[in-house]
C-alpha cells in the first residue's frame, strides 16, 4: 500500500537532489534546471497531499506553480543570455560583481 508518506519521501529526495545541483554546479543553465526540479518535487508533494485529503486545492496550486516556473524560466534564461553577451560566460563563479 502506497501512502502519503511514500510520496512525501520521494518528493524530499527529488528536492534534495535539486538543492545539491544548485550548490554543486557552476553552469547557470544547469542551476536553473535544478530549480525546476525543486519546483517539481514540491508539485508532487502537493498533488499527493491533495489526494490524501480529498481536496482539489492542491491541484489548483500546482497549476500556479507551473505558471511561476514558466515565468521564472523565461526571465531567467533571458538574463543568462544577456550576461553571456556582455561577459562571454555562463559560469556562476565568474559573475561576482555583486559579491561581498
Amino acid at each position, binding site marked *: 500500500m502506497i501512502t502519503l508518506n511514500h510520496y512525501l519521501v520521494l518528493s524530499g529526495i527529488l528536492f534534495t*537532489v*535539486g538543492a545539491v545541483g544548485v*550548490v554543486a554546479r557552476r553552469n547557470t543553465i544547469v542551476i536553473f534546471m535544478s530549480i525546476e526540479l525543486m519546483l517539481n518535487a514540491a508539485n*508532487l508533494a502537493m498533488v499527493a497531499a491533495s489526494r490524501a485529503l480529498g481536496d482539489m486545492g492542491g491541484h*489548483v496550486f500546482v497549476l500556479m506553480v507551473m505558471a511561476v516556473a514558466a515565468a521564472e524560466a*523565461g526571465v531567467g534564461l533571458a538574463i543568462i543570455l544577456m550576461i553571456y553577451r556582455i561577459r562571454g560566460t555562463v559560469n556562476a563563479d565568474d559573475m561576482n560583481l555583486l559579491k561581498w
Partner: protein
Amino acid sequence: MAEAVVFYVFGAIAVIGSALMITRRNPVSSAWSLVIVMVCLAALFVALSATFVAAMQIIVYAGAVMVLFLFVVMLLNLSEEELGKPKVTGIKILGIIVSVGFLVELIAMSLRAPAETGGLVEGFGQIIPIARLLFTTYLLPFEITSVILLAAIVGAVVLAQRKREKK
C-alpha cells in the same frame, strides 16, 4: 498493488534521472534527463488520480519549458573549455552536507504526515471540478498569476532584445 508498481518503477527512474541531471557535464544531457524526470512525475500524477495536472505537466514542462532551455543551450553553443572543469571546493562539500541534513529532516517530517482520509469525490482531478475551483474559490490567485505571466513576457522581451544603435 498496481499503484505500488507504478510508484516504485517511476519513482526510481525519476531519482536516477535527477541524479544524472546534476552530474552530466553537457547541458543538453542534463536537459534530457530533466525531461525523463518530468515524464515520470506525470506518470505518478496519474497514479494519484490527478489526470489534468499530469497532462499539464507534459504540455507545460516537457513541452514548453524544456524547449526554452534547449533553445538557450543551443543558442549559447558552449564549447568544452567554456563549460569548465568540475572543481571540488570546500563550500560545495559543505553545501552537499547541509542538503543531506535537510533531506533527513524532510524524511523525518514526511513520516509524521497524517493518515489518508480516503474516499475521493466524483470526478476528482478532472478538468471540470478544477476549473470550477479555479474560477470561484481561487479566482484572485488565478488573476494574480496572469499578471505574473504578463510581467514575465515584458521582462523577457526587454532583456533579450539587442540594444538598437541610435540613429
